[in-house]
């Protein structure tokens, strides 16, 4: 199987319960996935802070945040970077959503979602949209070098709100 095919076969699919986790968002604060029950949640796994382009994925989502908020959805960014890198990155990009640090044990949460790149030691560029009960309703793994944009997330959120 190609690398892409292996990846598509291990990533958690719609219908599965999203594994709960608790990760640091800052040196002294933690965030648990379960605290967002009751609202849709977007998990955006991304390889690393500070890619050198205007409109890297987190910058883009930061700009699109009001559109996610129309669905009462929360956005969480997750990479294996440590909390200090996240703090600097978040400040530099003026981010208004948490960045979570899947740092210790490295990639443990990403592994449970099937989105850890063993060969690189970082997460895939992967998106999950969870409904208000914590069930995965959409997931997508983008080629590592391609910013998947926001449209897939918005479509998933729309179909969530339509199926109510």
């Amino acid at each position, binding site marked *: 199987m190609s690398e892409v095919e292996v990846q598509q076969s291990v990533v958690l699919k719609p219908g599965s319960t999203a594994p709960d986790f608790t990760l640091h968002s800052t040196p002294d604060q933690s965030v648990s996935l379960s605290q967002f029950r009751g609202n849709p949640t977007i998990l955006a796994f991304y390889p690393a802070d500070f890619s050198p*382009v*205007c*409109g890297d994925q987190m*910058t*883009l989502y930061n*700009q*699109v945040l009001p559109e996610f908020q129309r669905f009462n959805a929360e956005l969480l960014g997750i990479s294996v970077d440590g909390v200090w890198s996240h703090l600097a990155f978040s400040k530099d990009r003026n981010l208004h959503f948490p960045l979570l640090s899947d740092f210790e044990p490295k990639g443990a949460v990403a592994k449970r979602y099937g989105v850890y790149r063993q060969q690189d030691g970082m997460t895939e560029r992967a998106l999950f949209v969870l409904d208000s009960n914590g069930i995965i309703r959409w997931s997508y793994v983008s080629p590592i070098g*391609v910013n998947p944009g*926001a*449209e897939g997330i918005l479509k998933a959120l729309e179909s969530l709100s339509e199926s109510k």
Partner: protein
Amino acid sequence: MKTEIVKLTLPVSSDRDHIQGRTSAPVTLIEYGDYECPYCGQAYPIIKEVQKQLGNKLRFVFRNFPLAEIHPHAEHAAEAAEAAAVQNRFWEMHDYIFEHQQALDDKHLEKYAENLRLNLAKFNNEMSSHVHAGRIREDFLSGIHSGVNGTPTFYINGIRYNDSWDLGTLLERLRSAI
């Protein structure tokens, strides 16, 4: 690397879009851009050269995609260009802004309007009441729904262009779309 085909969702319309070139041109190039983005600044002279080389064969369209959270002047710069558009000087202001990216605070935007001999009272009124913010948001959302993921993002004949926009590559791709 295989990349998917991503399509523009809001077709070009002379009722709303800023267009250079004829409707009948065989190739349409759309740029979703941010006036404070350095990459868009780099693309600016490349587009000019492409327009020069392709002449009548090219129709160029500019749409707004300001990344306001990281570019604090991008939104107002976009509004300034839209205000200039109302006075039929969109492209002059668009060009002026890209040629002065290091000075985009409100005072300078007003100076540029003055240099372009716009009706200043009208310009300033529209800037302070943010009359054009809605149009800019409409551009932005059309970009999001069309798969714009950063700036600049280009579309050639309605399909997102994913390759390098260096002059050579871009020209070759545009020529092959004719």
